[in-house]
């Protein structure tokens, strides 16, 4: 077998890495060099929080099960053991209360990381996120900035039904005063969570449970303690010429899978990973539009007033509209509460073939 031959004939380190890539099969970061270390999204988040807590003693984590349980999804594993009760705090199941407490602590200049076990529960606390955190800087005429991060898994998971599957990207991206991040890869998660924690404004950091266990290859630069990515800048994950797929979070994975399939049909898709939902990186989007003249929005959240709707509107109301060779299409979650049954759930969230179908429809219409 090829791999065994290589192991025999080439140095074992190279072979190990090569085998690693074959086994993991998810070498999806365009910027990663041919060599790199595998890092799961979970570990990316964990190390980012750890390093920022080490760097700045005002940073603390508060949320349900973040301390002694090591985190409901193990994102905060090991942190309580390292930093203790003062800086990693288990809360009662009282989102409105602890989001308010975390926000008040931010008023006083601490740097809280407030975890929601999922963003579905953030609705209980949303008054504090919007009215207490997002608006205070403006209402105080610039006196009191609120350096807080609200983070946790967002959107559909698997088999958790309607109340646990909503995507809140559009809701939070709607509000001035917030910065809203929706990362995809381990590189995204490390760089953007560090940036979020260092940012002097309130940041909503929307993770994805399904991505937590996914390993990505990352360069040494990504692993360095001061690796910070700019909030508000999208990333072209895959360059292409015929159509632009714009996505965030898990939908980036879907889009990359679709791009692979489309290439088999001779359609070269460019995939943009938004990384940040507010502010939106329209420059990257418009540059791509000028090249491909075709846009398909891909998201897991509901279509009505969603991220795709917003980008579509911004393009339509500007001269960039004339760059389009076809109307913008949106691929989104179905406009229904999430059902529990497996096949129904599968039919409620866009898969790669749905994106392929949208692209082929668009291009045939020309």
């Amino acid at each position, binding site marked *: 077998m090829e791999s065994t031959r290589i192991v025999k004939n080439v140095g074992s380190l190279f072979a190990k890495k090569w085998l690693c890539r074959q086994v993991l099969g998810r070498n999806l970061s365009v910027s990663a060099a041919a060599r790199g270390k595998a890092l799961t999204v979970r570990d990316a988040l964990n190390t980012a929080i750890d390093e920022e807590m080490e760097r700045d003693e005002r940073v603390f984590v508060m949320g349900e099960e973040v301390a002694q349980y090591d985190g409901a999804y193990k994102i905060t594993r090991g942190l309580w053991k390292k930093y203790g009760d003062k800086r990693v705090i288990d809360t009662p199941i009282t989102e409105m209360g602890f989001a*308010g407490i*975390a926000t008040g602590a931010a*008023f006083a200049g601490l740097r809280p990381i407030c975890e929601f076990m999922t963003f579905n529960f953030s609705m209980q606390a949303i008054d504090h996120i919007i009215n207490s955190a997002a608006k205070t800087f403006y209402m*105080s*005429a610039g006196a009191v900035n609120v*350096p807080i991060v609200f983070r946790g898994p967002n959107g559909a998971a698997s088999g958790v039904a309607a109340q646990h599957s909503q995507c809140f990207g559009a809701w939070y991206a709607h509000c001035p005063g917030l910065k809203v991040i929706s990362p995809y890869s381990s590189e995204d998660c490390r760089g953007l969570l560090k940036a979020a924690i260092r940012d*002097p404004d309130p940041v909503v950091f929307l993770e994805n449970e399904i991505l937590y266990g996914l390993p990505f290859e990352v360069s040494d630069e990504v692993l360095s303690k001061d690796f910070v990515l700019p909030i*508000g800048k999208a990333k072209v994950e895959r360059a292409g010429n015929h159509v632009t797929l714009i996505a965030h979070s898990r939908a980036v994975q879907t889009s990359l899978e679709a791009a692979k399939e489309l290439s088999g049909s001779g359609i070269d898709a460019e995939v943009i990973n938004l990384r940040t939902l507010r*502010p939106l990186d329209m420059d990257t989007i418009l540059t791509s539009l000028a090249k491909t003249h075709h846009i398909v929005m891909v998201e897991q959240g509901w279509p009505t007033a969603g991220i795709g709707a917003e980008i579509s509107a911004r393009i339509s*109301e500007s001269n960039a509209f004339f760059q389009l060779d076809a109307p913008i299409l949106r691929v989104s979650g179905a406009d229904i509460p999430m059902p529990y049954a497996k096949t129904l759930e599968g039919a409620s969230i866009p898969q790669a073939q749905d994106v392929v179908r949208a692209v082929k429809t668009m291009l045939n219409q020309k």
Partner: protein
Amino acid sequence: MGVPVFGVLAELLGRKGGCARGKGGSMHMYAPNFYGGNGIVGAQVPLGAGLGFAHKYKGDGGVNISLYGDGAANQGQLFEAYNMAKLWNLPCIFVCENNGYGMGTSAERASANVNYYTRGDYVPGIWVDGMDVLAVREATRFAKQLCVDGQGPVLMETATYRYSGHSMSDPGTSYRTREEIQEVRQSRDPITSFKDKIINAGLTTAEELKNIDNEIRVEVDKATKDAKADGEISLEELAADIYATNLDGPVRGLVSGDTFKHINIGAQVNAK
């Protein structure tokens, strides 16, 4: 601590000399050690508990005082805040200013338990005559010391009364009688009764107090005049201070293509 008279009046009128440059208004005033004014009834209590949390975290010996009314006393988030404040021994004094009415609904019609000082359950509570200046001062002194000694949180109910309506649009008489208001004004007014107390104790004379009144009247009148004469901030500040670090370039205005420049004016006390 606090804001001078002019800063408050100008803020009420939305003028640039206001303590929030007119951008906050009556419900959102900010000053060193004063974090509003919160427009969402009850929200200030968890926020206050968070400020108390920060005092404890920093070990600076500070104490937070969070004030709310009888109308806010039934908000769920208060109990969430009491619970965490008690679990973590936060240096917080939660003060319920019970003036008998939440907007137009009397305390008895809103609360199954009107003994607000007991509503903290496991949080010790003190009932205070809110119309007695000295009682309020001593109770606060006591509560503050408890907190400084690490024995917080504490709850205080100050029994007081609201003479006027809830707001400018409420005459305040559709839900109570004028006689009730008059009765309180005559028998329990905090200023009149304190005045009587210190005169009777020989600590001052009616004339001295009249002089103080006149001095303050002059000061307040001037502040009122200045506030009324003050202008509003210009439209250039419409998009000022939305973010400490704006990452989005120009801020969208009313019509596609309209933009405002985001600028920073305020002190950003937590930016570093």
